[in-house]
């Protein structure tokens, strides 16, 4: 215990000198690893083109970022949280309890979620129902609820290739997982008609959760790391199919082959038109109380959503972000510092 005490007293000395040190002059950002590349691209351009220092951007996931964001107001708390999902009511309450009352929500654009396999493998044309049947813990076969019996894609639908089912899906800590469950598995559950059977047999609520339950026999593998880990797993297990962000796929088109969903190939165009079904908006949240305290915070938010950056011709779109068709509304909201409703 002695060294701990000693170092705490050492700390006290340092803290005393630290309070004399100058105020923080760079913006601090944390949150979603999906938004991270976009955020760093903007931060870099912001640092290059303005007199403000380059913002410091941390990763760690949407939930971790929002948690940090809601820790309070002041120089040693972050200014912006990146998120791949809208802020939850519980998080808003936590924010409020810590004194973070004025939050600006900024939507930067849309991100597609794609299914991709090894470049040398089979071509896949999926539907959401195929994914539900492949990965759900229980499926409906001949009108009865049975534990998932499928081992090959061709058993689900005859025109899918005869290949072992093996899917690498994002782990539960990722914002991507929620979108995957909602827009692919739950949608597939409805599409295949299983939702009705589940609801009849198990009741409304249990039926819904049965739709979302994934099989645990090793055919569906949760990846808690990043997309690079998913890619590495596919390269070692060639018959695996992974869930990726569109921008990650576009950076690795020489190694990955993308599958269509409902006959639509994912691209920034098909997502912008709303044809490709699996996409979600990306956000960042600004602590309005820090505007004016932290130099350049508002300028950074405005720079982020400006046409040159977040527009369809900007660097973010080039990296794989689907530009927001209502960008002008977002720009105006940022300029007016519109906060979220209570």
């Amino acid at each position: 215990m002695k060294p701990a005490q000693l170092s705490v007293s050492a700390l006290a000395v340092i803290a005393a000198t630290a309070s004399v040190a100058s105020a923080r002059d760079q913006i601090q950002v944390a949150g979603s690893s999906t938004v991270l590349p976009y955020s760093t691209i903007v931060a870099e351009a912001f640092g290059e083109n303005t007199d403000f220092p380059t913002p410091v951007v941390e990763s760690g996931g949407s939930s971790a970022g929002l948690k940090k964001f809601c820790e309070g107001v002041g120089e040693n708390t972050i200014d912006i949280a990146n998120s791949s999902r809208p802020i939850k009511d519980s998080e808003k309450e936590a924010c409020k309890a810590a004194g973070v009352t004025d939050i600006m929500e900024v939507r930067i654009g849309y991100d597609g979620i794609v299914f991709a396999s090894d470049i040398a493998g089979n071509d896949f044309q999926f539907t959401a129902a195929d994914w539900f049947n492949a990965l759900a813990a229980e499926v409906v076969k001949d009108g009865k609820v049975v534990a998932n019996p499928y081992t090959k894609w061709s058993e689900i639908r005859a025109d899918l290739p005869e290949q072992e089912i093996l899917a690498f899906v994002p782990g539960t800590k990722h914002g991507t997982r929620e979108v995957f469950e909602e827009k692919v598995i739950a949608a597939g559950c409805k599409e295949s008609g299983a939702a009705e059977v589940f609801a009849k047999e198990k009741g409304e609520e249990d039926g819904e959760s049965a739709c979302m339950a994934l099989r645990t026999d090793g055919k569906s593998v949760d990846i808690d790391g990043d997309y690079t880990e998913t890619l590495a797993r596919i390269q070692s297990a060639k018959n695996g199919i992974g869930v990726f962000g569109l921008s990650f796929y576009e950076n690795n088109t020489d190694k990955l082959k993308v599958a269509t969903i409902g006959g639509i190939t994912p691209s920034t165009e098909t997502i912008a038109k709303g044809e490709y079904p699996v996409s979600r908006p990306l956000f960042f949240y600004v602590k309005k109380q820090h505007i004016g305290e932290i130099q350049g915070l508002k300028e950074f938010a405005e720079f982020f959503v400006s046409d040159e950056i977040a527009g369809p011709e900007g660097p973010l779109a080039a990296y794989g972000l689907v530009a927001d068709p209502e960008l002008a509304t977002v720009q105006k909201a940022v300029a007016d510092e519109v906060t979220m409703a209570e």
Partner: protein
Amino acid sequence: MSDATFSGGQKASLLVADPHTRKRNAAESRFRGYGLAAIIVSMVMLVVLLFTILTGGLGAFRQTYLEIPVTLDAAQLDKSGTRDPEAIKKVLTLTYGKILQQALDKAIADKGIQVADLSDKDRAGLISKEASAQLRNRVLADPELIGQTVETRVLVNGRVDGYYKGRVSMESAARDGNTSPAQLQLADALKAQGMLATTWNWSFLTMPDSSDQRPESAGVGIAILGSLYMMLVVLVLSVPIGVAASIYLEEFAPKNRWTDIIEVNISNLAAVPSIVFGILGLAAFINFAGLPQSAPIVGGLVLTLMTLPTIIIATRAALKAVPPSIRDAALGVGASRMQSVFHHVLPLALPGILTGTIIGLAQALGETAPLLLIGMVAFVKNFPAAPPDGLFDPASALPVQVFNWTQRADPAFMERASGAIIVLLVFLLCMNLLAIFLRRKFERRW
């Protein structure tokens, strides 16, 4: 020696070994075999590790540059014509990108380079996005350049760079959305003209991190600096605290239940997972003491806590190893206990203390987990100031940089990550060599 006489005597010996002796000899040679096998296995592992890191990472130390004359058009860069720095600042990197593009197009036309199927995108993508930022900074530093034509050395796109390092081939480029065979042919043609060359890359060691779109300009400059700052804090805090604590515990403290409790706790702390120190650091240094996030000072404090037990244990062992006769002799000629410790025991224990300290530092240098929670696993682009102020500026660290780069989508960052590992290994090697050197030097005084 005994080996030689034994094996030499075996042939000529009249001794007939009884079954028991033979069994014992067999057991011994088996054991030697196991030992040798263990060494071979670990050496093979090491060679495989080094081989993968070196083949993957040496590329980061070489970089492809393009050298072209760039006409800095005054009409585009300084509309007012006053060369006023404030007015020039209003021109963004986008415009500089266009100027570089015009320069490249002109160079292609001047040299009469013809490449089939060369699209606008291929030409636009050849030059790195970093180049326009560098050119803008150069012009801002010297506004007189506007209107002149200057020879400019610009980075090329990470894929083209990868082509000359064997990471990208014509086949993979055909499937790749970020490059194309035509772009690589253009690069080849420029190389044939002597404008494009792959050279030694100092900037990998000096440049800061860069965003996902420009892996070619990413470097470990801030990471090296951040790691150095943290090691400085660790050294300044943990060595005096650790050595003082061990001297007190070993030489002065009474042996009672309290010192036993302290001893158990220190040994226990040495085995605590490093992430726990990160949680402690977040609670104590950032939330309670109000130190800034992402700062080397917090990283250094957290790593100090982590290193202290290692240093204390090593120092106590070194002090224990000094024969009691030394102390007795010193006390016998009238030295005080403090004099006996500082004049005699401590100098003799110094080699052990140094080894412990350096091992502790090396461990701290490679640590990532505790830094995760205190905001050091971050994208940092501005260099921290010189210490002591710089200790409070955001910075990165070498292992953190490796961790960050392995998560990026562009495969070129994998090469950078291996390069950063090489840098880290070189630092560790230097530290260990220093430890051995110092130990040898001091050990002669026995």
